[in-house]
């Protein structure tokens, strides 16, 4: 089989829609196009039936029941709805929220907005392996804490947080626990009861479903209340008005079903490919550093710094491979990745990081091609790197007085 270029290794950003998912969706664009809120005819009934079946299927993947699933447009909306919804509804109970510095912007920026409205937010640091320490959560909890929001797995480095332990501590103090589970769901086992989660954000397009559909799990026993952000027809039991995206929901449900049935096999296959990539790179290229815990990591994630080679230049060199970088040059802000900085990764190393994301359709041939390409391009770029030249001649780069920039 010949290799098809470009190669996709950015599965954290999004995933292709599985053919089986697309097949399940198509009838809901065609003959079953009805509005799930139409109660008076067969078109509506058929749409509603698909939506309710979808709820059960998505719930099953996380150990929940269908009535606890609220459909949204995606995880950004789910994060906003969970955090703002709890903050507003329970404002008489307290005004303190706990989260971590490595969370997704959808969580961090939502918290920042709440700070402007008078809420107090604690942004917990992470350990050098990129994980939130449960004891740090325990110490931060106060009588005023109404919500703790911690992600299941990190989008940049793939590290997995000990959410079960954190959830138990949060529950013991009577606060609500929200988990942004976008990156972990469908890749590692997750259960809303084991993790003591009250709210969980999900997104279909990170698990081989379509874009534009997500969900928020909202616990019913004991009942968790949220103030809606979008007012209107009172859909989703008043928590999220708006006509439902029926084909999206059907696709999300099919994607969830496939993950539930195939996760165990798929994870071990993807992990083997990830390890092949990691070992191949480490064997061929000196001076590389893995960012974040290798042990507590999603199977398809590899975030690696190639010392003395700037990340964006590296991505240009890997033009036939879709990856991403923590380098400043990939962002408008010119600041290197806040996640890597939170781990204590030096700025100069953060600039050299590349994130590889492997998934369902990654092949061994692709991995081998990428290893060869990375090895040759790192060599080329190091040959033109003044830092590599200095380091090779024994100069300690820290001994040089660098200019301000």
């Amino acid at each position, binding site marked *: 089989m010949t290799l098809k270029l470009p190669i996709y290794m950015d599965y954290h950003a999004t995933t292709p829609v599985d053919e089986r998912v697309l097949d399940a969706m198509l009838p809901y664009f065609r003959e079953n196009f009805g509005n799930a809120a139409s109660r008076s005819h067969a078109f509506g009934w058929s749409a509603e039936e698909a939506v309710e079946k979808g709820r059960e299927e998505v719930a099953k993947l996380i150990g929940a029941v269908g009535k606890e699933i609220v459909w949204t447009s995606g995880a950004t909306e789910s994060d906003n709805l969970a955090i703002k919804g709890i903050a507003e509804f329970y404002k008489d109970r307290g005004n303190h929220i706990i989260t971590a510095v490595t969370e997704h912007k959808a969580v961090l920026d939502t918290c920042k907005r709440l700070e402007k409205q008078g809420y107090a937010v604690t942004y917990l640091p992470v350990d050098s392996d990129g994980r939130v320490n449960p004891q740090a959560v325990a110490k931060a909890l106060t009588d005023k804490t109404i919500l703790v929001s911690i992600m299941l797995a990190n989008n940049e480095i793939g590290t997995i947080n000990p959410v079960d332990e954190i959830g138990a501590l949060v529950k013991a103090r009577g606060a609500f626990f929200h988990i942004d589970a976008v990156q972990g769901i469908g890749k590692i086992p997750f259960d809303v009861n084991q993790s003591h989660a009250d709210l969980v954000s999900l997104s279909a397009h990170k698990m081989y479903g379509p874009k534009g559909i997500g969900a928020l799990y909202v616990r019913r026993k004991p009942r968790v209340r949220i103030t809606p952000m979008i007012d209107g027809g009172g859909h989703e039991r008043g928590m999220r008005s708006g006509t439902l995206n029926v084909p999206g929901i059907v696709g999300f449900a099919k994607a969830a079903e496939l993950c539930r049935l195939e996760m165990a096999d798929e994870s071990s296959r993807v992990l083997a490919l990830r390890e092949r990539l990691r070992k191949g790179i480490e064997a061929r290229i000196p001076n590389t550093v893995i960012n974040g815990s290798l042990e507590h990591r999603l199977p398809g994630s590899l975030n690696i710094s190639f010392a003395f080679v700037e990340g964006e230049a590296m991505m240009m060199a890997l033009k036939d491979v879709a990856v991403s970088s923590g380098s400043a*040059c990939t962002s408008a802000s010119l600041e290197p990745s806040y996640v890597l900085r939170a781990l204590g990764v030096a700025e100069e190393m953060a600039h050299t990081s590349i994130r590889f994301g492997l998934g369902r359709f990654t092949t061994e041939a692709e991995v081998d091609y990428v290893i060869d390409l990375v090895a040759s391009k790192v060599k080329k770029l190091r040959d033109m790197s003044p830092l590599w030249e200095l380091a090779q001649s024994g100069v300690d780069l820290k001994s*040089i007085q660098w200019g*301000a920039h």
Partner: protein
Amino acid sequence: MAYSNKVIDHYENPRNVGSLDPGEPDVGTALVGAPACGDVMKLQIKVGKNGVIEDAKFKTFGCGSAIASSSLATEWIKGMTVDQAMSVKNTQIVEELSLPPVKIHCSVLAEDAIKGAIADYRKKQEHRQEERSENAA
């Protein structure tokens, strides 16, 4: 980031990558930028007796535009007199490579590198003059 074809050309076929011996009296060396900022350029010039830049070399740690800016800078200053090279402006580099606003600092760094290499060369020359006049006296 969508780059111009000229940036891509310089990035893929960089001109004048390499090093000159910084110990030579007719070689000027500059090392500008900082690893923590994601850009470091080393630019060197070799100046002939007539004040013309005979050779220029660079090595750059940085993004595609940083590499292209330094590659273009070495290409331009080869054959210029030192005084002509002093007047190369970062805006000319921005224009030639169609750099987007967020990448203008790469061109600034390249201008700094040219000026730094010339300053280093001139310092060496003054030093030699002093030595010569001391020897004469």
